[in-house]
Each structure stands twice: as structure tokens, then as C-alpha cells.
């Protein structure tokens, strides 16, 4: 019988359940390893070589190298584990969370000081709030996505 998963229709949100945890086991355990200073140093010296010590999928490794946290989460990562990568890079939780929206650090910080993101239109997939798929990326990320850059 199928498990009850009433949380798959929340936009911009991946719930870290047993299935995601199973997919992301090695990715998350790699992240845990970065809590040791020696491992952080080895990772920073050669990220690819360090990642190759872990039985992660190639997609997971690529997402880590690109610091694409949304992709990491889709592939089974959990934000509290992925935060160890951010700590290794010297980022705050706010910088990490902001990076998943397309907004600049400043834009995201401003949104939070202004009361945060409204739940209006962001409760169910298919509404028209700013977290819906058809409105990504947000902030400067949106402008960058629609403005062709010379020589890019």
C-alpha cells in the first residue's frame, strides 16, 4: 500500500522523508564529514578528489561542485546537512537559504526585514505566489535569466 504523502503539493518545497533520506544517504554523510577541520581542508584542496571518496551519484557530485543547493535537495540532500558545505565556504544560513531563491543576499535580507515571504499564493502548487515554479528564479536571478549577457 502506498504511504501517505500529503506534502508533495507545496510549491518550492521538498520534504526530507525516508525516501529522500535513502537517496541522499551518502550525499548527507559526505556533508557530515565536513564537520572535521581536517576534512574541510582536504575537501577545499581538491573537491573532486574528496567527493570521489564517497559512493555518491555523479549528479550529486556535480550539484555539490556547482553549489546548487536546490539540486542537492532534489537528489536527497537535507538543508541541515548541506549547511556543512556552506559553513566550509564561510556562508551563513541566510546566505544559503537566499541562494536557493535566485535573489541576491541583499534582496533576500531585505525581504526578511520586510516581514518575510508571504504564504499567500504559496500554499499549493498551481497558485500564483512568488515561490511557484513559473515565477523562478526570483529577484536578480530573474533579470539575469531574461537579459541576454554579451559574450556569455
Amino acid at each position, binding site marked *: 500500500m502506498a504511504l501517505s504523502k500529503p506534502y508533495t503539493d507545496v510549491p518550492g518545497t521538498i520534504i526530507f522523508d525516508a525516501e529522500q533520506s535513502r537517496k541522499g544517504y551518502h550525499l*548527507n554523510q559526505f556533508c557530515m564529514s565536513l564537520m572535521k577541520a581536517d576534512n574541510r581542508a582536504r575537501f577545499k584542496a581538491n573537491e573532486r578528489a574528496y567527493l570521489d571518496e564517497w559512493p555518491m551519484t555523479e549528479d550529486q557530485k556535480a550539484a555539490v561542485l556547482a553549489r546548487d543547493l536546490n539540486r542537492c535537495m532534489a537528489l536527497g540532500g537535507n538543508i541541515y546537512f548541506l*549547511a556543512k558545505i556552506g559553513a566550509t565556504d564561510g556562508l*551563513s544560513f*541566510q546566505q544559503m537559504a*537566499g541562494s536557493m531563491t535566485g535573489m541576491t543576499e541583499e534582496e533576500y535580507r531585505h525581504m526578511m526585514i520586510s516581514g*518575510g515571504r508571504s*504564504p499567500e499564493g504559496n500554499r499549493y502548487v498551481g497558485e500564483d505566489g512568488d*515561490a511557484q*515554479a513559473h515565477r523562478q528564479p526570483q529577484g536578480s536571478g530573474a533579470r539575469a535569466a531574461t537579459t541576454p549577457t554579451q559574450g556569455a
Partner: protein
Amino acid sequence: MARITASVYTSHVPAIGAAMDLGKTQEPYWQKVFSGYEFSRAWMKNHTPDVVFLVFNDHATAFSLEMIPTFAIGTAASYAPADEGWGPRPVPTVIGHPELASHIAQSVIQEDFDLTIVNKMDVDHGLTVPLSLMCGQPPKENFRWPCPVIPFAVNVVQYPVPSGRRCFALGQAIRRAVESFDQDLNVHIWGTGGMSHQLQGARAGLINAPWDNAFLDRLIADPQDLSQMPHIDYVREAGSEGIELVMWLIARGAMADVAGQGPAPRVAHRFYHVPASNTAVGHLILENRP
């Protein structure tokens, strides 16, 4: 006999700890957060308990994916502040209360709550930030927390987390366990985490102030009804990490009125502020009336 006299509820945002550790508390951004705890620090000085039973969640610090206990009670003599990747917070070692903790573990397990017993655990911001908020930074010449602490870790990282209903019933069992302990101890129970926040994906930064304030109202006045709220409501309304609020129901369940042993608790203090980093800060102090 030991007794629970008060419960405290507070968010445990890591950036709050960092602001204290880096001396930023007087910056306007942080001043607004800390102003809500001035009362609480004075209250703690005047109402210092013998033990704090502190409900919190570990954030992939002591528990990786190797082991994921739903409920874990610390029965150790002490707990070191964890290095979460930014270095350990410069706060005192947390002194435990192994006798009361073991007693609660035995009592609560006999009431069918299958706790994991932990004798070695570093404690992360989930536990140390509430202590910092309520106690301030202890002075160098007396570098210790004001009382022993029993850490009680709840899994709210990997879904499914325990239901609000289960947490509320557990709080009631903890109350009975405390009251069956022979020593005359004054115990506070703290529920931490929340309020609305989401740290992931395109919906990161979600805040729902009306929902948060309604949660506070219901927690005070009708926790039994609040405890029936399904997980999905927390996620949809308060963000994926807003689910931490189920932990507040453990502390609320341990109050006298729930056991039919007294009137509704006195609201000694209530505070709400947006934002601290990604999060809405909520805070309550409830006292059992004598």
C-alpha cells in the same frame, strides 16, 4: 517530590547565538530580538529552577543519518557545546542531571514512550541558543549555566516527525515522571524551535505572522485542540522548518492544567518578532499557578 512550576517556549535561531558570540547584540537589527528577552533574563534570575528539562532538536550535529532517534533523553553528567562547522560556541559546558533524567527515562518508557537513552552527546545551537537567550552570557569569573539541564532531543529533521498529539501526550507523561521523583526539585520544561520559517527551495524565507500568533493563542488557551493539528498544516502555513513547533507541545503537555491539577497557567511573558535571520521569533513564559 519534584514538580514542574513553569514552561518556557522560544525559537532557537543559530544566528542569535552568533550575534551574542560576536558582540552584535546592540546593533539595531539584533536589539529588537534581544529586547524581547530582557524580561526573561530577570525572570530566570528570580525563578532559577533546580533543573531545566530542555526539549530541542539536533540539526545534523550529534545525530547524522547513521541513527535517527525520534525521542532521545540525555542521561549524561555533562554535554559539550558542539562544533557545527563554525567552531564550538564559546558558552559553558552543559551540566546534566543524570539521576532525574534516568528516572524520567524509566518512568516514561514504562508508559509506552520508547525513548532512546543517550549518554554521550554534543549539544548544538538548538539547545545552547535558548540557554543564551534566557540566561545571557555567563561572566568569565563564574562561567557556568545557572542550573543543570536535561537535554531531550526530538527528530524534526527526517519526516515523519512525531505528531503534535504524541508530543502533547509525552509531555503529560514527563510531568507524571517528574512528580514521582523523591527529591524536592523545582523543574522548568522548555520547548524550543520555530516559529514560522523555511530554509529551503524557492519558498525559503516564508513567514506567517498571523498563523504564528494564532498558534501562541491556542498553545496558551487550548493546547489539547492545537495538538490535533496535522503536520501538513505546519508545513503549508509555517514553512517546512516550522514543523519544529511540535516540540512546544511537549512542554505545554507538562503543565498542571492539562493534568486537571490547576487552572490555566499564568502568561508571565509573551513576545513575537520578525525576523531573526530566516525566522520568526516567538517566546512565551507560562507559570503554573500555586
